[in-house]
């Protein structure tokens, strides 16, 4: 196909060509027509001059005298006129062959005529003069009666010939003038006169018929008349032929113009069609972009667009609870079926609500967008729809039982609507009985997230700048009141502040920084043993132990520091669920090989399982602070602690009371038989 510009160029070219043709046609047409008129007028002039010449001849013949100048003037005019014709436009083209032929014929005819006129002129004078002489001499000649009669006869004959100009051709005839020759004269002078008279008559009898015939021939206009008529006819025929040819050209141009217009119209149609197609495509595309393929509901893009039309929007976000389980359990087809069914129900019901639209904004989430209304009304709408959705029997063809679908809704009138509605929804996630939550800023954990990010940042920095520091809290022998060891507690040094692991340890696990912190804790605790010659108790999580690299690191470190390993205690959290008990047992066995002791931290807070204390060969039990901190006032706590201590003594396990914050508590725990105490009563955690 040709390009747009080529097409435009061609059409423009065609139009310009047509305009040129049209102008050219008009011009040519006029030129040819005017040539026709010109030729006509030239022929008319020829005719006129020819008439003038004939007129001259006639006058010359009839008048006693007529100046040859006139005929000569007309002849030269005729010559000029013929020259003009021979020089005219028609000789520049091949379009007038017959006209040219006729003009040549006329020109030849005229040349012939000029010669004849010359001859006529030569006879003219002498015939007229002789006739005049003869007539005017009659009075001077004296004749007998008989001679006179004969003379009269001769004269009559001559005059009748003379008068047949313009009538008919005359036969030359012998006129008998013997009577004149025989005439006897009185004087010599008279004899001369008679002789001259005879000469004249003889001349006339010889030349008069020739003269008359020559005049008649010249005056015969029939031939030239015919020629002129034929010439005019021929000019007209030939001129018309050219005009017809030109007209044909004109019609060709007209057809061409028509075709060009058709082509242009065709292209306009084509362009229009193409435009329509593009518009349709755009519409389809927009639909596809703004429509959810599965359900036919408007999608998130559509939601974004619609949002701007709402003055004060409220969003209700519906979520299919645990939709992935449905997919997993029944397969994607069933999941799709459920989504379609939900969509249909939503569609039908949302249509009933004024100023509301339904969108599918996620895989299993739907949004009703509507103008803000009262909380009660929104709650009502939402719960009605939820009830409808949950009560629906989702019968999938191949399944016998209907599938039960649980849904929850989050509502937000605060920007960003869907995210906030999501936050509200999330706040429900642990409670399947609550179905609807309305967003308020307290639900928003975005600030927390920000703080978390800042904290992670701090941890990273601390690891690089060696700001992970250890504080140590002494453990006191309740009998001797002496410090027997220190619990190493990890802190993040932030300027002059020590940040508790409560704020960063969980984050560090998520940020994969935890392992490095563990390494720091172990290295620095061991360093403290080296530096200060004290016993150190180090906190480990089960995770650390099960983590292969950390596990190996601990063993390697212990191997490197065999001299001090007997001064180390590892505290494990009782609250933690032990998944891989065997691995744990193996680890404990290994470190016990280095002389390390094992303590269980926060014992009594969770599932206090005595059995596994025995299995794990635990050396020390650290009784959970929650049992200790009010022990001086709580008898039940004293009972719990007492049972623990009794068991520990039986199992030969030392016990530690944490959170000893006063003299009263110390007294209670001492009395209960706990071996060691730890808490603010003795010392805050502090650098050694």
């Amino acid at each position, binding site marked *: 196909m040709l390009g747009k510009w080529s097409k435009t160029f061609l059409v423009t070219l065609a139009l310009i060509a047509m305009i040129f043709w049209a102008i050219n046609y008009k011009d040519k047409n006029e030129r040819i027509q005017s040539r026709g008129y010109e030729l006509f007028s030239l022929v008319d002039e020829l005719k006129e001059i020819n008439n003038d010449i004939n007129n001259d001849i006639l*006058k010359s013949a*009839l*008048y*006693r*005298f*007529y*100046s*040859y*100048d*006139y005929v*000569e003037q007309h002849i030269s005019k005729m010559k000029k006129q013929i020259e003009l014709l021979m020089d005219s436009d028609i000789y520049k083209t091949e379009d007038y062959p017959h006209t040219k032929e006729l003009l040549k014929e006329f020109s030849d005819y005229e040349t012939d005529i000029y010669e004849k006129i*010359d001859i006529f*002129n*030569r006879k*003219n*004078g*002498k015939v*007229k*003069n*002789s006739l*005049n*002489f003869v*007539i*005017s001499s*009659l*009075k001077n000649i004296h004749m007998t009666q008989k001679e006179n009669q004969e003379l*009269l006869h001769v*004269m009559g004959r001559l*005059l009748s010939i003379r008068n047949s100009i313009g009538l008919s051709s005359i036969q030359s005839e012998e006129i008998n003038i013997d009577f004149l020759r025989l005439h006897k004269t009185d004087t010599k002078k008279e004899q*001369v*006169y008679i002789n*001259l008279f005879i*000469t*004249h008559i003889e*001349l006339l009898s010889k030349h008069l018929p020739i003269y008359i015939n020559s005049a008649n021939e010249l005056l015969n206009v029939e031939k030239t008349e015919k020629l002129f008529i034929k010439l005019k006819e021929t000019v007209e025929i030939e001129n018309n032929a050219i005009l017809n040819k030109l007209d044909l050209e004109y019609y060709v141009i007209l057809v061409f113009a028509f075709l060009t217009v058709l082509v242009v119209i065709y292209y306009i149609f084509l362009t229009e069609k193409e435009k329509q197609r593009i518009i349709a495509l755009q519409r389809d595309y927009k639909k596809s972009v703004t429509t959810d393929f599965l359900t036919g509901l408007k999608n998130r893009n559509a939601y974004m667009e619609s949002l701007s039309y709402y003055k004060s929007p409220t969003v209700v976000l519906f979520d299919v609870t645990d939709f992935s389980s449905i997919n997993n359990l029944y397969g994607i087809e069933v999941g799709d079926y459920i989504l379609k069914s939900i969509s249909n129900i939503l569609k039908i019901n949302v249509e009933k609500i004024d100023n509301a639209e339904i969108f599918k904004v996620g895989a299993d989430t739907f949004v009703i967008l509507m103008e803000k209304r009262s909380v009660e009304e929104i709650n009502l709408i939402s719960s009605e729809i939820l009830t409808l959705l949950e009560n629906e029997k989702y019968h999938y063809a191949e399944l016998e039982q209907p599938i039960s679908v649980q849904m929850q809704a989050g509502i937000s009138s605060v920007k960003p609507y869907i995210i906030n509605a999501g936050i509200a929804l999330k706040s429900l996630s642990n409670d399947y009985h609550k179905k609807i939550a309305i967003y308020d800023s307290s639900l928003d954990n975005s600030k927390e997230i920000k703080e978390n990010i800042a904290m992670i940042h701090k941890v990273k920095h601390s690891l690089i700048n060696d700001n992970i520091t250890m504080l140590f809290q002494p453990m006191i022998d309740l009998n001797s009141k002496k410090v027997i060891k220190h619990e190493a507690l990890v802190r993040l040094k932030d300027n002059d502040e020590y940040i508790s692991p409560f704020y960063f340890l969980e984050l560090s696990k998520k940020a994969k920084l935890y392992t490095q912190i563990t390494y720091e804790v172990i290295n620095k605790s061991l360093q403290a043993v080296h530096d200060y010659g004290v016993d150190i108790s180090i906190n480990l999580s089960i995770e650390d132990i099960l983590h292969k690299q950390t596990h190996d690191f601990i063993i390697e470190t212990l191997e490197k520091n065999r001299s001090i390993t007997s001064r180390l205690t590892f505290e494990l959290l009782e609250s933690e669920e032990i998944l891989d008990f065997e691995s744990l047992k193996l680890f404990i066995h290994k470190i016990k090989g280095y002389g390390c002791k094992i303590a269980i931290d926060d014992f009594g807070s969770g599932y206090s399982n005595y059995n596994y204390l025995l299995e794990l060969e635990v050396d020390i039990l650290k009784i959970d602070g929650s049992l200790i901190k009010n022990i001086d006032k709580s008898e039940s706590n004293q009972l719990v602690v007492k049972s623990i201590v009794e068991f520990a003594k039986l199992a030969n396990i030392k016990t530690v009371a944490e959170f000893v914050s006063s003299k009263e508590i110390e007294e209670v725990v001492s009395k209960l038989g706990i071996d060691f105490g730890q808490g603010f009563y003795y010392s805050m955690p502090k650098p050694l």
Partner: protein
Amino acid sequence: MYKLFIILSLVSTSIYAEIITPIKKVESYDVGKVALGKQLFFDKKLSKDGTISCASCHSDFGSDSRVVSIGVNGQKGVIQSLSVFNAVNNYKQFWNARAPSLNSQMDSPIHSAVEMGNSIENIEQYLKSSKTYNKLFKDVFSKKPSYLLLKDAIVAFEKTLVTPNSHFDRFLEGKESLTRLEKKGFYLFKNYGCAACHNGVNVGGNSMQMIGNVVEYPYIKGQSDLYSITNKEVDKNVFRVPSLRNITKTAPYFHDGSVKTIEGAVGKMAYYNLGMVLEDTDIKAIVSFLKTLEGEVPTTWSSNVR
């Protein structure tokens, strides 16, 4: 009965148009060109031996008073010189009308061995070698001299050589009247039939006629008549009718220069061509009419053009 013929004759006589028309004055002309033409007309160097100019044979009222003119190397011409005056008004040039225009007429005397006897090359060489002509041609034509331009200039000069304001022309124009004798002469001129051939502005010079129309005229072998061109028996002794303008000033008469007086010429012509023997009184009257045809000498001829 005679009366009837006479009436008829009179009627036909009385019907005539203007048989003779006055000469029109030359109102304006290209002075430079005419001056150049005149200079060339009078330049003998245009002839082969530098002895003959156009004017050599056309000086006596544009004609030559000798029976025949003398050309280069003293050679005699073959025919009586026709006047250059009013030649422009003749329908064709030469006694036998062989040249249709003044321009074509000129070739003949220039190249004729017995007249100027020169070639185009020689003439052009002469003109181009002349400072004067170079300048004049440049002034007039803005071109270098050439034979064609020479003819153009001479023709321009010749076209000014007309003799208007004759007594007769002034009579025709109603400004003067003729004497009785002149009137009688004019009447006879018409009535005897002279006017049948001697008519028009040049009183002749507009048709071919045979000398000896009625009574045979002696034929001279080799003469430049129409026969010399056509070789037709009927064209023997056929000449172009000479103009009668200034005829009384341009003796001798006829192609053969056989008559020295105008009276003789009128009588001879009446005899041969009208079949008449004229009375002396008639001849006298006709001659007095012919004298009225004497016009003014052209100013471009008589005085300096510039």
